[in-house]
């Protein structure tokens, strides 16, 4: 363990090569000690005979072939864990940066984690209340789910992330469940300095900081650290969920920066690139993060993930959103034209989807009419789009009366249902009732996804009057 290797053989970007290494193991951690006594962390990424390739987390600036001593630590990268991590702020590589000292570790865990045996998983069934109508009603977030937000540069995904962190709660019978412990792990990858400050300040202002674990990797921090950030965050999340029985919501932002860091790292290793220069293993790599969401049999905790990514050029077919969509259980897509219309949160309803929603809503979870309202809103809003595209060709005046009614419905749906204040938290009852009120703007015959009984109970044109004028 205490063997030190003096000097290096080669330095290339974030990678250094060490020669004549004995007894190194794959993905083992190393310490590189500089002449001035500072220590940098590194990890072995490839071994060939007695040659080891090491990635240096803090970057290789100032390293020379002679001024370092390298020490093998004998274990893979680990995270020190204890319940005290709540309320703390860490760097991207899991070091405390809030000035409160090291975490007194109860256990150490390998940050790479291990795949959950599909047999040991519990199928996710209950939901997390976010207080945001569009999400709660139409793409409900289920405990143990991974539901990404696809955004674009300049849109309000950060605001939305803060709102979700501040409002999210575990509910039971419409009220906050006092028996469930809930916390948030927030991992920021490649965010700008002022955005990071804004996150921290907002959490403190909203009084939720004590239930948040923050990981901050800023955009000028080394990219190697960025590759570790989500892994550290998820290790903490798994610990809190499966050893402390908490419901953990993990927010990862921004996954596009993460993927770019991976690409940079891959090309510096000289790997053969796949689509758009991203490494061929991007899918497996993203999966090794996203698949760490879930619930395990016999544990009351859960890990739920909301990865946020900015689609380069708003292109949903770009490799990062594309591969993410194939792994995650649905997606929430933000829409630029809604954003420009001043609607917050600008959730684009039609391409958004929560795959696990069908089993986690309805009686016993949200309300018995939930799936009916959601389906009907989807169907009606799809018709709004048809009417709009027709109107753009033949003009609004030429539309049939029913199409005009759909246009009106669409407008009110966007402004009243999708749109809400950034401090406004709606209960599930408020959200669903609002959905019914909006549906009541349309003639009863148009509501073909709802059965008669439910329609008679909830359909009330009186309620729709508030949207008139």
């Amino acid at each position, binding site marked *: 363990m205490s063997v030190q290797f003096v000097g290096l053989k080669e330095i290339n970007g974030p990678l250094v090569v060490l020669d004549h290494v004995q007894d190194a193991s794959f993905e083992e951690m190393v310490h590189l000690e500089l002449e001035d006594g500072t220590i940098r962390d590194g990890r072995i990424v490839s071994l060939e005979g007695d040659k080891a390739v090491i990635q240096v987390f803090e970057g290789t600036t100032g390293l020379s072939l002679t001024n370092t001593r390298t020490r093998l630590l004998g274990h893979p990268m680990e995270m020190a864990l204890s319940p005290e991590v709540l309320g703390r702020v860490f760097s991207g590589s899991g070091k405390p940066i809030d000035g409160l000292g090291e975490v007194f570790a109860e256990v150490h865990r390998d940050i790479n984690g291990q795949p959950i*045996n599909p*047999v040991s998983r519990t199928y996710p069934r209950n939901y997390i209340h976010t207080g945001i109508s569009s999400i709660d009603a139409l793409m409900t977030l289920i405990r143990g789910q991974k539901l990404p937000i696809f955004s674009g540069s300049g849109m309000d995904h950060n605001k939305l992330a803060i709102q979700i962190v501040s409002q999210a709660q575990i509910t039971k019978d419409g009220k906050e469940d006092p028996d469930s412990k809930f916390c948030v792990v927030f991992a920021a990858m490649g965010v700008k300095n002022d955005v990071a400050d804004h996150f921290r300040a907002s959490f403190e202002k909203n009084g939720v900081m004590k239930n948040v674990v923050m990981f901050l990797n800023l955009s000028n921090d080394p990219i190697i650290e960025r590759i570790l950030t989500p892994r550290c965050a998820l290790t903490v999340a798994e610990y809190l969920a499966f050893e402390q029985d908490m419901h953990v919501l993990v927010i990862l932002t921004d996954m596009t920066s993460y993927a770019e860091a991976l690409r940079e790292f891959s090309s510096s290793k000289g790997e*053969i690139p796949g689509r758009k220069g991203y490494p061929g293993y991007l899918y497996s790599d993203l999966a090794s993060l996203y698949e760490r969401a879930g619930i395990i049999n016999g544990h009351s905790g859960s890990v739920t993930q909301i990865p946020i990514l900015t689609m380069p050029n708003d292109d949903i077919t770009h490799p990062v959103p594309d591969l993410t969509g194939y792994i995650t259980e649905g997606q929430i897509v933000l829409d630029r034209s809604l954003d420009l219309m001043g609607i917050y949160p600008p959730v684009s309803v039609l391409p958004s989807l929560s795959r696990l929603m069908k089993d986690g809503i309805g009686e016993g979870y949200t309300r018995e009419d939930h799936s009916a309202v959601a389906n009907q809103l989807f169907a009606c809003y799809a018709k709004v789009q048809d009417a709009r595209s027709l109107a753009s060709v033949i003009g609004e005046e030429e539309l049939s009366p029913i199409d005009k009614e759909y246009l009106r419905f669409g407008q009110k749906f966007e402004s009243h249902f999708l749109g809400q204040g950034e401090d406004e938290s709606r209960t599930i009852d408020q959200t669903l009732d609002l959905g019914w009120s909006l549906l009541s703007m349309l003639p009863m015959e148009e509501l073909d996804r709802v059965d008669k009984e439910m329609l008679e109970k909830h359909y009330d044109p009186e309620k729709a009057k508030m949207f008139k004028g």
Partner: protein
Amino acid sequence: MNHNIIYSINGPVVTVRDSKDFSMQEMVLVGKKRLVGEVISISDSITTIQVYESTTGLRPGEPVEPTGSPICATLAPGILSNIFDGIQRPLQEMEALSGAFISEGGDISALDREKKWEVTLAVKPGDTVKGGQVFASCPETSLITHKALVHPELSGTVTWCAPDGSYNIDAPLVKLTDGEGKEHTLTLTQKWPIRTPRPVADRMPITRPLVTGQRVIDTLFPIAKGGTAAVPGGFGTGKTMTQHQLAKWCDADIIVYIGCGERGNEMTQVLEEFSSLVDPKSGKALTDRTVLIANTSNMPVAAREASIYTGITLAEYYRDMGYHVAIMADSTSRWAEALREISGRLEEMPAEEGFPAYLPSRLSGFYERAGYMDTLCGAEGSVTIIGAVSPQGSDFSEPVTQNTKRFVRCFWALDKSLAYARHYPAINWINSYSEYMDELRLWYKENVDPTFTRKRQRLVSLLHEEEKLMEIVKLIGSDVLPDDQKLVIETCRVIRVGFLQQNAYHKDDTYVPMEKQLRMMDVILYLYDKAKELVSRGAPISSILETGLFDLLIKMKYDIPNDKPEMFDEYRREIELNLAKVYIPEGQGAAQPEI
């Protein structure tokens, strides 16, 4: 003594230097933890091995041990209702061994070696047996009788036989002497290399459909027993849902469901759903006829590559007993990506989009293992492959979709815009096709109705006509169309919403028998013909629509229970009655467009 030691490690790829002890595709045990690996290339100086487990913590200098045989599947009773990972390790046993998280190096037997099976011998001393012949049988689940087969490469004279009774899978049952006088002992177990197709007596022509109870498939784009189909679709278009529906309802004897690089929660859902669902034909739990292979996206990538072959080997084994087996592979794109990933690690020259140049030959090698076969034991069996494809960026021109298209004969294209409109199954009726219709014509004629294929063709033509009309409607609105064309659009609405769209969560609609499919089609066409006649006599389309018949037909999938086909006669009468009331203005020859 062991000079086979690890030289380099890069992700799942490990190399050994200066060794001549390995053969291609041989299974090896790597390192002190004895991780399972496979030899993928050999050169004078370097042997390259892909490791099926996480290589974290491995060191150069650790031993690599050859096993002398390629990666094999263990074939014996106990496969059904089990769940395996990509290299046939039982996940339930692994949970018992290492807890909820999968740790590496678990040396574990694929099947339960303790469990005893009630075996009935089918041969006696003095009999001559050939490879593939049934020598014993035992009930494996409530649905399936397991037939123990002589290893395909063995034949000879039986010299000794155990009496009927209960045996575990390792107990000697039969001894035989082959032509060279060598003695072999047969047990319930045999091993078969997963990358080699199991031999059959003969390939037979395709004659029977795989009935799935899904209208858009059975009626429009049927798949045959022994056929191949691809289900391509971007994320969120319902690939997995379609696969689940087929696995639940298709009339195969055995289902092999391969979750290849997909979501963990999804596999849990399959597990949970299948054990609670009851097979409609036998009344037994669906798991009794199902094998699950789960290699989720975060499990090692090399095992993902192997999972497809493990799955098809298990399927072929049951086919050889004379069963009809259907394989659902979800998704073959993940498998292709595993190939790409490993190829990249080996620094091979990439072809299209970084995929290796051998992608098409691997794909065809897989799909060609499907077929309707005359097996070595003299029975008929089939393997049907239904592979999901997840095209990158929902672009069907990418290499995996394009190459798959060349090797499958049935193509169910899932459509994003249908999925956005929550039209499920989102199988696009314009882009999809089935080449099996001609071969199955006779079956439909004899088993469903002589007019079936003709009616189907009319449905397809109507939908095609609608497609063309919609182009016009998109530009100028539907008001300007003449009445007979409006009628086509209205009828197609009934076909789309009332027939093609199918609700997987509705107790009747989730599975629809062939007869009901026929009658539904029949009644829709009946309405169209009658209404067309009225239109040609000058009746305005608006008054035909006012009868509400079109909406009645849209709802008939829910309103008519599967076991009451006689209700369709009432619908016909209803149509006749209501259309008779439609007012026809006098002196009108043909319909005039409304202005």
